[in-house]
C-alpha cells in the first residue's frame, strides 16, 4: 500500500493555497479582497500564491473593473476541486495512520 505522503501535491499541501481552494470551492467566485482578509495575508503574498495555483491550472483569475475600481475574482477549476478533494483525503489518511500507530500522540 502506498504511503499517503506519496500522494501529497506540493502545490496544494500548504495552508494558504489549501485555504484559497477551500474558500473558492464554496463560492461561484471569490474576490481578491475577501481572500486577503480571510487568510490574513498581504497583497503580495496572496498574489504569489494565486499565481502558483493558476500556473498549476487549479484556479482561474479574472481581472476586470467595476466602475473605475479594479476587481480581481478567483474561480476554482474542476482540476482545483479534484486537487482539494485529494489533498483532504490524504490528510485524513495521514491523521488516521498517525492515530493508529501512535494512539498516545496529542494533536
Amino acid at each position: 500500500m502506498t504511503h499517503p505522503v506519496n500522494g501529497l501535491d506540493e502545490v496544494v499541501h500548504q495552508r494558504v493555497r489549501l485555504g484559497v481552494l477551500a474558500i473558492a470551492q464554496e463560492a461561484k467566485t471569490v474576490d481578491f479582497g475577501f481572500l486577503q482578509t480571510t487568510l490574513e495575508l498581504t497583497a503580495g503574498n496572496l498574489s504569489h500564491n494565486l499565481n502558483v495555483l493558476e500556473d498549476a491550472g487549479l484556479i482561474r483569475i479574472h481581472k476586470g473593473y467595476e466602475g473605475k475600481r479594479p476587481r480581481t475574482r478567483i474561480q476554482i477549476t474542476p482540476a482545483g476541486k479534484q486537487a482539494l478533494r485529494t489533498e483532504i483525503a490524504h490528510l485524513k489518511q495521514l491523521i488516521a495512520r498517525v492515530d493508529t500507530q501512535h494512539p498516545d500522540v496529542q494533536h
Partner: protein
Amino acid sequence: MPTDIPASESDSPQQLLAAAQGYTRQARAAQRQTWFPLLVLGLVVAAWPLFGLSGPPRGGCGPLVHTSSGVFRYCTLAGSGFFFRYWTISLSLAYVLITGYYLWRARARGIGTRVGRYAWAWMGGLVLIGASVWAVDQHLNNLTPGESLLAFRLAAFTPLLAIGAGLFVLAGVERHPALAWFTLACLALAGLLLVSTWPSYLLSLSDSRPQLFAASRYLTVGLFLMLGSAGFALTERSRP
C-alpha cells in the same frame, strides 16, 4: 494581522485539515443571509388572508349535488384560480427579490454565491401548486356528501410545502443545519394547523367565524417564519 511571511511548510496534517475546515466554514457563513428569505416568505404567507380570505368567496366550487337531505355544494379556495394566481405570483416575486438580494449582498461581501438551484426550487414549487389546484378542481367535480375533506386541507398546505422545499434547498446550498431544522419545525406547525383537524375542535372560532379561523392559521405560520427571520438575523449579526 496580515503577513508577508510564507506559510509554514511544517504545518501538521491536523493543522492543515483544521485550517481548511475553518476557511470552508467562514466562506459558508459569509454567504448566509437566512433572515431575508424567511422575512419575505413570512410576509407572503401572512398576507394571504388579506387577499384570499377577506371579502366574498373567490370561486373554487364544485357543481350542485342533490341528495335526500338537500342540495349540496362544496367550495374551497384551494381549487380556485385566485389561489393559484396569488401563490404563483407572490412566490415568483419573492424568489426574484430573494435571489436579487443574495446576489447584491454577495457582490458587496466579495464572495459570489450560486443561485441556480433556487430557480429550480422555485419552478418545482410552482409546478406543485399548479398540480394541486388542478387535482382539487377535478376532485370537486366528483365530490360526494360526507366524503373526507383531507385532500382539500392538503391542497391548502401545498404552498407551505413549496416554501419548505425552497428553504430546504437553501439549507442544503448553505450547508445550514439550523435552517433545515427550523424549516422542519415550520412545516410541522403548518401541517398541524392546516391539515390536522384538532385545532378547529380546540377553538370555537372555527364554527363562529370560519374565515377568521382560517386567517389566524396562516398568520400564525407567517409570524413563525418572521420570528425565525429575527432569530437568524440576530445570530448572523453576532457572528465575528
